[in-house]
């Protein structure tokens, strides 16, 4: 292959890099300036007095220079079906990313990118052994250049597919041979988008619970009169009531501020949230100031989880998360597919993206045998605490007994919510933390399965099933607790068999 053309990033990279480093260094800088800058007094030579400003200036200049160097030295090009990146002044770093390994390209448009029509491109690969960063990051390139990467990738894929045919070889295991006809019809179908109304509901209900609680606290403090304070000294009583009110209002205002901030942030980051389907990729775009575009290959999706928050459910809304094998830890592996969607419509949308997924409600429920285990374990810590409270604060400590029915009710609620269902090669598990979670997982995506039984479980014939699914670098656990041991063993058997004789072939066909 001849010498490849090498591409550079846009010059704005230098400024973005500089600002990024500065953002990280801003705190020590501020401390430095405050510690030195405002000492006042006229002692010492002039340069000593302005030391912090000098340091500050030097730092900015050096950051700017290093930003420029980074930009100058950064090159990328395509060669031998690889994306090659070279960077660094003294230590030259070369990174070659084979096209086959590239899982997705994620685009972000920040405020600096917008005026110049640029994007930041993150190259996500399968392994991703480094937790902190995407494998390759092109800080700022023009949209045309971003398009070129895509074309280059697509061409490489096509070359790879054609090759075996030209050579006349039969490649049974050719990864995605069935995709070829599909590829002819280039189509990006829009599946789902969030209206402004939905967006507002999402923004206002996210993290709203703290505000509600502190509102309740204020409300309660007004009723402090009803609590018998007579036995206390008049002044202390007044002070406590006053104090409670002040603290409650302060907390409320603080939380309100945080909440408004989070509403604003959610609004900005989820503005114009759209999910579309492009052949075998899900594409999620969102954001007002910073436009983000995330691509998730369908093949990499491990599990689909329907989350029903009780507060949002009142308004008929649920959310859907997907767990993907790509990406790093936390955020990037747990993708909000639909942050907020009408309960009645979610199945339509999901079945459009995952036609092979069986989306019915799980119908098999654990019997009442397991019910006591949902709250029994809580008594272990509860009884000593309640005992101590009653002992030390005698009459009022008795109020702590009120927690028992709450815990029991919560346990019964969890028990009622739990359910599972096995459909062919798919396991559906439903469990409640506070929100109700329903995990839809194909058998081939389950990494391992565990059945747990304590001594008490064994006596009553109850067991807990835990399923591990890969999620980014880590794992996601779905569980159905305290079910009948026969059912639990049935699930284990289902998981165990399948992979034996003929079904292995069936499974292979489904995968490929």
């Amino acid at each position, binding site marked *: 292959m001849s010498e490849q053309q090498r591409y550079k990033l846009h010059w704005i990279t230098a400024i973005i890099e500089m600002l990024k480093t500065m953002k990280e260094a801003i705190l020590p800088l501020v401390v430095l300036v405050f510690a030195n800058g405002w000492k006042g007094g006229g002692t010492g030579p002039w340069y000593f007095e302005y030391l912090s400003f000098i340091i500050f200036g030097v730092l900015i200049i050096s950051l700017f220079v290093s930003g420029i160097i980074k930009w100058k030295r950064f090159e990328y090009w395509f060669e031998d079906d690889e994306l090659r990146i070279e960077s660094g002044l003294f230590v030259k770093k070369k990174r070659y990313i084979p096209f086959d390994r590239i899982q997705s390209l994620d685009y972000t448009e920040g405020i600096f990118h917008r005026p110049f029509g640029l994007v930041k491109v993150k190259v996500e690969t399968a392994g991703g052994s480094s937790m902190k960063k995407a494998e390759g990051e092109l800080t700022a390139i023009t949209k045309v250049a971003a398009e070129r990467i895509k074309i280059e990738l697509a061409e490489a894929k096509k070359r790879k597919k054609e090759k075996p045919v030209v050579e006349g070889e039969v490649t049974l295991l050719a990864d995605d041979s069935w995709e070829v006809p599909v590829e002819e019809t280039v189509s990006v179908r829009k599946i789902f988008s969030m209206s402004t109304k939905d967006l507002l509901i999402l923004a206002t209900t996210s993290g709203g619970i703290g505000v509600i609680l502190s509102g309740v606290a204020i409300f309660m403090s007004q009723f402090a009169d009803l609590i018998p304070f007579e036995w206390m000294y008049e002044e202390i009583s007044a002070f406590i009531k006053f104090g409670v009110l002040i603290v409650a209002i302060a907390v409320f205002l603080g939380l309100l501020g945080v909440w408004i901030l989070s509403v604003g942030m959610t609004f900005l980051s989820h503005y114009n949230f759209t999910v579309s389907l492009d052949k075998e990729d899900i594409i999620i775009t969102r954001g007002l100031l910073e436009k983000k575009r995330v691509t998730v290959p369908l*093949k990499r999706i491990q599990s689909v989880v329907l989350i029903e928050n009780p507060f949002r459910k009142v308004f008929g809304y649920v959310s859907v998360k997907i767990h993907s094998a790509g990406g790093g830890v936390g955020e990037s592996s747990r993708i909000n597919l639909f942050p907020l969607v009408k309960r009645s419509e979610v199945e339509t949308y999901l079945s459009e993206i995952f036609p092979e997924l069986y989306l019915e409600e799980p119908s098999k429920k654990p019997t009442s045998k397991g019910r006591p285990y949902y709250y029994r374990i809580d008594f272990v810590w509860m009884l000593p605490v309640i005992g101590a409270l009653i002992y030390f604060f005698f009459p009022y400590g008795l109020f702590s007994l009120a927690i028992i029915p709450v815990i029991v009710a919560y346990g019964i609620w969890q028990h009622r919510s739990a359910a599972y269902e096995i459909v062919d090669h798919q396991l559906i598990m439903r469990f409640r933390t506070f929100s109700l979670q329903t995990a839809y997982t194909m058998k081939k995506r389950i990494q391992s*399965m565990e059945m*747990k*039984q*304590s001594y008490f479980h064994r006596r009553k014939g109850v067991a807990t099933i835990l399923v591990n*699914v890969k*999620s980014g670098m880590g794992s*996601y656990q779905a569980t159905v607790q305290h079910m009948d041991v026969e059912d639990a063993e049935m699930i284990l058997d289902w998981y165990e068999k399948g992979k034996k004789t003929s079904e292995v072939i069936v499974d292979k066909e489904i*995968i490929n």
Partner: protein
Amino acid sequence: MRSQPANRISKKGLKVWRLYGLIQTIILAVLAIGGGVLTYFLEGPWWIYAVETVFLLIIGYLLIILFPKVRWMRWRYEVRDSEIELQHGIFIVKRTLIPMVRVQHVDTSQGPILRKYGLAEISISTAATVHTIPALIMAEADELRGRISVLARVAEDDV
């Protein structure tokens, strides 16, 4: 009822766990003796010695005798052609099923105590989880590692 996995781990493993228990107990004993000395110099009440002794005896019994025994009795594993099954746990018995196709790699490792007894532990990693069989005879661990990696290689699959 599902039958239990077939293989137990080496009897020497029990010895190693007892040794671990002994080491932990010795550390606690040193702390207890420190406490005793302190009590002596501060002229604390006599029952502190009694509490310390009883506490130490109970912990020693649990860590050296009971827990290793229950743990050893419970620990079972079986490597079949298409999956690995493990069973372990003292209070809560966990049975884990790992299909061969999900196995990504297998490691054996060995600390100084395990080496002295000619044992090794074997870790089986899937894409999401890591499962460890502690204390296998070294030759057996190596053989198992080889076998799992061969079996796992047969069934290639995408994650």
